[in-house]
């Protein structure tokens, strides 16, 4: 099987996991999760160096921080299918006594999670801190992070963006899930972000634009390019255009599925568009 075919099969299974998780508890955030299925898959299957024998300190491995914690279904699916915890545990998503909380947390000891997120805007600062420690420990591995575009409306991001640019934090690669949608509608209607590329550049970041943020090959190529740009006294950001609800026709092109679960019939339709590949949990 080609690498690309493997990645695509992985993505399809992740989509099924996302849909089935949120359907089962009639809550959660499928839209953004589906939009980032390809990104998570490439990151964990192709790009990052890590051990599934989880250790909080993560020395001598790449680290990832999810700042927009509400897309936990995609994070959980990819962590499980990458070997961090049993896939069957996806069955416990958002249920009582679960390690798979509504938003990711270290509190229940779920392997693969290094910070709680959910209250938005905090992940970039955390990533910078972890990157500083890597430098102090003479650890040349990288720190990756993912942020929602709407999340950039939180002011703490701009403190962190100013800091990382001004101080030349050059071992982080931040990615913005640039789907241009948030709960109340289009970001352009809620609070326009303006020219994000110019804004990051004005804060001394190296900016990569990824127009095909739902294409595994394009994601891989851009992440590899980003890796090549680290170590140059400049942080790197990828503006990744994605489609919210990608892979499920009735969830695409709208913000309606940001935080809404499909009903039984809708689930059936959505799953039919994404046939089982690696085996359902």
């Amino acid at each position, binding site marked *: 099987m080609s690498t690309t075919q493997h990645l695509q099969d992985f993505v399809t299974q992740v989509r099924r996991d996302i849909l089935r998780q949120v359907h089962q508890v009639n809550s959660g955030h499928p839209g953004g999760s589906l939009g980032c299925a390809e990104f998570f898959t490439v990151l964990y299957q192709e790009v990052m160096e890590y051990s599934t024998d989880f250790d909080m*300190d993560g020395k001598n491995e790449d680290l990832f921080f999810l700042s927009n914690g509400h897309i936990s279904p995609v994070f959980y699916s990819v962590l499980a299918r990458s070997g961090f915890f049993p896939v069957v545990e996806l069955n416990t998503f958002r249920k009582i006594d679960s390690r798979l909380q509504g938003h990711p*947390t270290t509190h229940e000891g779920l392997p693969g999670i290094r*910070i709680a997120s959910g209250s938005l805007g905090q992940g970039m*600062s955390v990533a910078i*801190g972890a990157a500083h*420690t890597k430098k102090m420990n003479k650890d040349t591995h990288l720190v990756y992070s993912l942020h929602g575009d709407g999340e950039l409306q939180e002011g*703490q991001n701009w403190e*962190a963006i100013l*800091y990382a640019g001004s101080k030349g934090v050059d071992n982080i690669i931040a990615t913005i899930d640039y789907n241009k949608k948030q709960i109340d509608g289009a970001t352009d209607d809620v609070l326009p972000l303006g020219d994000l590329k110019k804004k990051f550049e004005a804060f001394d970041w190296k900016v990569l634009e990824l127009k095909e943020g739902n294409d595994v090959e394009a994601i891989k190529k851009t992440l590899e390019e980003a890796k090549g740009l680290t170590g140059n006294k400049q942080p790197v950001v990828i503006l990744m255009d994605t489609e919210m609800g990608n892979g499920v026709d009735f969830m695409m092109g709208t913000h309606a599925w940001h935080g809404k679960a499909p009903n039984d019939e809708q689930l059936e339709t959505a799953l039919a568009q994404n046939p089982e590949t690696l085996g359902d949990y």
Partner: protein
Amino acid sequence: MKTYKNTGSKDTRSGFGAGLTELGKTNPNVVALCADLTGSLKMDEFKTNHPERFFQIGIAEANMIGIAAGMTIGGKIPFTGTFANFSTGRVYDQIRQSVAYSGKNVKICASHAGLTLGEDGATHQILEDIGMMKMLPGMTVINTCDYNQTKAATLAVAEHQGPVYLRFGRPKVANFTPEDQKFEIGKAVTLTEGNDVTIIATGHLVWEALEAAKELDEKGISAEVINIHTIKPLDETAILKSVRKTKCVVTAEEHNFLGGLGESVARTLSLNHPAPQEFVATQDTFGESGEPLMLLDKYGLNAKAIAEKAEAVILRKE
């Protein structure tokens, strides 16, 4: 009664600075972060000695707390420094999610707490921080009384695994804790033994409590003064042992009576050994500009107020 000698007034923040300097030499994992108040927090020496372990974040406290949380991943022990107001209320959600809920080993070191910050006024004089911090699950809350105790506490929190809020202040106050006294987190220090009333004090008001005990002694009232430097976890054993003997208590703190030490003591008593209690604390008010000692007088946070409350609470005993 046992008396204490002021060996020379010093500010508690300098005790923090001295502790941090020592940690710089003894613990290579200790790192320091500051939000543009390096001099005020007395972090200059650490910065000079260890520039590679000192991080100037700028006036961006939310970012500082997040960076500190991230730094723990990989084994560093971050000490953040800014005024108490900007260490807590301004960044409550960052502390809540990235530090406390995430269980990160961050030491939030907060100077200029309370009214004794003085002339800058109410915008900077936080009187609610103990309440906010003690409500966070897993957070250890410490409020030290003098230079020596603050230095010892700074060394101790580095050895403690988990988030800590370390609160100290700006003005020079009496320094009476023995230089070699080991700081034990969660362990009260009984300063004087007495039978008539227990005075439980924290921070700058511990010295005032000792002064009050002297006044009371002259009137034939014997007061047991307990220095509660750790508000959470609270040394309930020491408190109950004392109150079972004296049957009444005065709590004293440079903080609002809502959410402070007094309420923690009241809970302990109501669950285990109900007893009359009086509160020396601010009365649900903001502060104002003025000289520190004049402010303490105006808001009733001094030896005189403690002694008066002690006499009042004794009358309430059954």
